[in-house]
């Protein structure tokens, strides 16, 4: 079966580094941390009080009525905000596609936790009769897709992917597959997440997964550094517009990049810990390479999962060495989570965009806070300063609890 080529024609993002992609990319290339003390909520008694928080966000009333803005949880609002940005760049709304051939698949790891907590409090304090009819619509993980389809009239495939911190990478892979197979002409994809809440932070803190560097928030996310002590919670969205390559060219769209490979696998090992030698990660990197049809030596950049946890960072480096062999030492790697924190289910969306911007601009964003690189993570991780690289292919890794893995390969346009 001949597969359609998949073009990327639009990008949109929001995270602790900024409210739009231009701002985020400028900050990422400059190596600025988007992590700071949390300001949106009172964090008294929280085990950790910093993160990659989006400050001063308010959704345009053009995208959601003011009366609905109190009703729909933050992850929904990030999705609408960044989808608008991506749609504007792509010009998709002016394209003459059948609405039934435009779909929406996002990844969301947790869904509407802030509103679950809020409505549960009402339930406990005031009883069942005071639980809002908007509780369920606000928190279900696929409502972001629903709202996007309603706002812009996209009547194609529409659902959410949940695979923890690999969610949006899997969403992008699935969305690309829809286009490769010819079921859809265009897809709005990527991911959104906003779960900086006392309950969620407490849960991750109990797992000993979070950095506790409260005195130096901007230096807390430090993948590959010997002093790393856990991930830093982030929030935001990363949205991509994908199109059937030939149809995008025919309508005169500007092609930003191409998706050429996608792999997905499982560690089959442990609920939360990575496989120590990165066995599952190696499988999905190899699958992505196979689908792309390129030689592994052609990959120039990897935006790693690199969450800044002691075990995870080593396991991923092991997987990359295994998958790339001798070429591993020539690769340029970086973990932009050092600047954005970990966007959980939205990480794969934002970091796929980082890969695409690296291809487009020839600039590789750094891994910041690498003061002393861990000898067990001995590949080139772009420590502290961005570098110039004229690369043709970039790979994004995203892994999630449950032992799930995803790798996606992007080609320069």
């Amino acid at each position, binding site marked *: 079966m001949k597969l359609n080529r998949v073009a990327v024609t639009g990008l949109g993002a929001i995270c602790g580094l900024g409210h739009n992609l231009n701002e985020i990319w400028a900050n990422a290339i400059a190596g600025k941390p988007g992590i700071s003390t949390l300001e949106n909520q009172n964090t008294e008694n929280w085990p950790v009080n910093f993160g990659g928080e989006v400050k001063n966000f308010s959704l345009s009333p053009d995208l959601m*009525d*003011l*009366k609905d803005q109190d009703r729909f949880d933050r992850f929904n609002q990030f999705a609408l905000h960044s989808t608008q940005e991506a749609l504007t760049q792509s010009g998709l709304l002016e394209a003459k596609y059948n609405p039934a051939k435009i779909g929406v698949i996002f990844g969301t790891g947790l869904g509407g936790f802030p509103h679950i907590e809020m409505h549960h409090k009402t339930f406990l304090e005031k009883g069942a*009769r*005071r639980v*809002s*009819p*908007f509780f369920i*619509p606000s928190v279900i993980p696929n409502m972001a897709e629903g709202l996007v389809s309603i706002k812009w009239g996209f009547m194609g495939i529409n659902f959410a992917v949940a695979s923890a911190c690999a969610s949006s990478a899997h969403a992008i892979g699935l969305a690309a597959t829809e286009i490769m197979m010819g079921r859809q002409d265009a897809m709005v994809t990527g991911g959104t997440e906003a779960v900086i809440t006392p309950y969620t932070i407490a849960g991750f803190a109990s797992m000993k997964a979070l950095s506790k560097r409260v005195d130096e928030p901007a230096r807390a996310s430090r993948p590959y550094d010997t002093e790393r002590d856990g991930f830093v919670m982030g929030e935001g969205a990363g949205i991509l517009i994908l199109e059937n390559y030939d149809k995008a060219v025919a309508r005169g769209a500007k092609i930003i990049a191409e998706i050429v490979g996608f792999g997905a696998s499982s560690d089959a090992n442990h609920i939360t810990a990575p496989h120590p030698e990165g066995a599952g990660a190696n499988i999905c990197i190899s699958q992505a390479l196979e689908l792309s049809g390129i030689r592994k030596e052609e990959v120039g950049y990897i935006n790693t999962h690199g969450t800044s946890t002691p075990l995870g960072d080593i396991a991923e480096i092991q997987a990359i060495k295994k998958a790339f062999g001798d070429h591993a030492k020539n690769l340029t790697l970086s973990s932009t989570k050092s600047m954005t924190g970990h966007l959980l289910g939205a990480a794969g969306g934002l970091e796929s965009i980082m890969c695409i911007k690296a291809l487009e601009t020839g600039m590789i964003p750094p891994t910041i806070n690498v003061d002393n690189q861990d000898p067990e993570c001995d590949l080139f991780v772009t420590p502290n300063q961005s570098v110039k690289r004229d690369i043709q292919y970039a790979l994004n890794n995203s892994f999630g609890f449950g032992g799930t893995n995803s790798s996606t390969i992007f080609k320069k346009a």
Partner: protein
Amino acid sequence: MELQEKVVKLVSEATKMDAANINLNTSFVDDLNLDSLDMVELMMKMEDEFGVEIPEDETENLKSVGDVVNYLKAKSH
């Protein structure tokens, strides 16, 4: 504050519509474009504000701001 004024204020807050444009004749569906979920939420707010319980089969008859004001007046007697 008069009962009518209180109801109008509540409807205005819930719908983010200017109170000046809401009167006794304002219809929830035709003028304010409220759907069934909006109505459930609005009735919860009425119950909270006025300390009454509005049974589900009664809410179906409350089609305008005036209907609610009359219903609440009857309840308070």
